[in-house]
């Protein structure tokens, strides 16, 4: 079954900014994973990191960012990105 799950990608100006937010979210116990920024986002102008957040956690993540003035460039939703049996390699 193809994956149709909606997930959120937090994009950054640079990886230092991304790592800072990654550390903050980890510290707050909010699940997030480092992922390459999907290239369908115009904001991702080059190869670079993003943070991947599940739909169930995005509200808490947004709240945490707001409260701690976490820096980022954009938060964008995207569905169907993780398909282990897609067999499309580089």
């Amino acid at each position: 079954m193809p994956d149709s799950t909606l997930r959120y990608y937090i994009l950054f100006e640079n990886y230092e900014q991304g790592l800072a937010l990654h550390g903050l979210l980890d510290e707050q116990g909010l699940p997030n994973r480092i992922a390459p920024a999907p290239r369908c986002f115009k904001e991702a102008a080059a190869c670079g990191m993003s943070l991947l957040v599940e739909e169930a956690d995005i509200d808490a993540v947004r709240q945490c960012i707001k409260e701690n003035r976490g820096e980022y460039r954009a938060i964008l939703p995207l569905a169907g990105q993780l398909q282990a049996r897609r067999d499309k390699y580089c």
Partner: protein
Amino acid sequence: MADYVQMWKDLGMDLENHDLLCQVLPTAVGDVFLSQENRPKAMDFWDLVISEVHGIRPAELIEEQKKGRKVFGTFCVYVPDEVVIAANGIVTGLCGGSQFWVPDGEAVLPKSTCPLIKASVGARLGRTCPFFRIADMYVGETTCDGKKKAYEILGEDVPMYVMDVPQMKRPEDILKWKNEIAAFARRVEEFTGNEITPEKLNEAIQLVNAKRRALQRVYDARKSECLPISGRDALLMMQIAFFDDPARCAQMCNRLADELEDRIRDGVSVVPHGTKRILVTGTPLAVPNWKLHNIIETSGAAVVCEEMCTGTRYFENLVDETKTTLDEQFMALSERYMKTNCACFTPNTGRIDDILRMVKEYKVDGVIDCSLKFCCLYDTEKYSVSRALKEAGVPILSLETDYTDTDAEQLRTRIGAFVEMLDA
């Protein structure tokens, strides 16, 4: 990220073409790595590195070049990193694991060349690999005919040094390799302008040994029946080890090993109990070649060990750290490197001994011997590997593949049937 674009421009890269590679990488990383559940937290580091694979490390290398250090791009685990490090040089791996680079390689090489070589040459000529653009010198070796001819092309516009690897392992061959290492050291001294002293070489030997020990610790954790890390994640760690700073590599691998050892203690496994354990052997899997591991691990099995250059051959055996003269140290290096069992040697029974040993150490249920298309040496060794494993009662599947996606379904069918047979 915009800084990287400027960096790539400054390196003379083909930005338009490189952008096509940037488009496919996130999809593959998502599918192969982020689709997994319960990954070790320490994999964060490698997720970052692969997300910024053409950014962070190239930028670091350029900064070091500005300080006067030289970067040496290498192709093989036979090239002794210690010699370069002792002269304050930096060793980096080079691109070569993607179908993306193959067409540019085929423009100058016969199609019947292995994809690793075609991709390496294509990455250089197509100007889509920052590491090929950054390296001040390429260091090759005579481990296969295809590479020997490719070096003649790669050496046209960048200094190229080729080490002559013996083809047998007699005492005189070990001495010959020692002399090759000594000659390489003289060239590295000349190129960097830095003298290699016994003290500096000893420091370098200890540094690279520490990296080997750290990689071994991660592999030791994979021997546990409670499997704390997937084969895909372990492979990514191995692939990046060729590019990273050796001290940081050791630090990160040790951090990962700490977590894996905790997981084993706490009974945390990435696969259900009873999942069949596979040892993969054969030709190297250069980054971002993840096809085989992904297919195996999404077919109900787990990869627990790689007997390959991007695996145990890279870190097993340490260099003797007690030698105090350059002559003795070069010999110690030769003795260690000549223990690596590459198919370029005849005979190469040591590789079969290694596989049989690892089958026991890693509690392996079945072996997959996979070579890249047109790799005559590893393809030919399948016969003796298969015979030895059958005699030992170990199930074996022999495969051949390349970097394209077109055989993925066929591989799924064959690997799926093999795993099913192991389950029966």
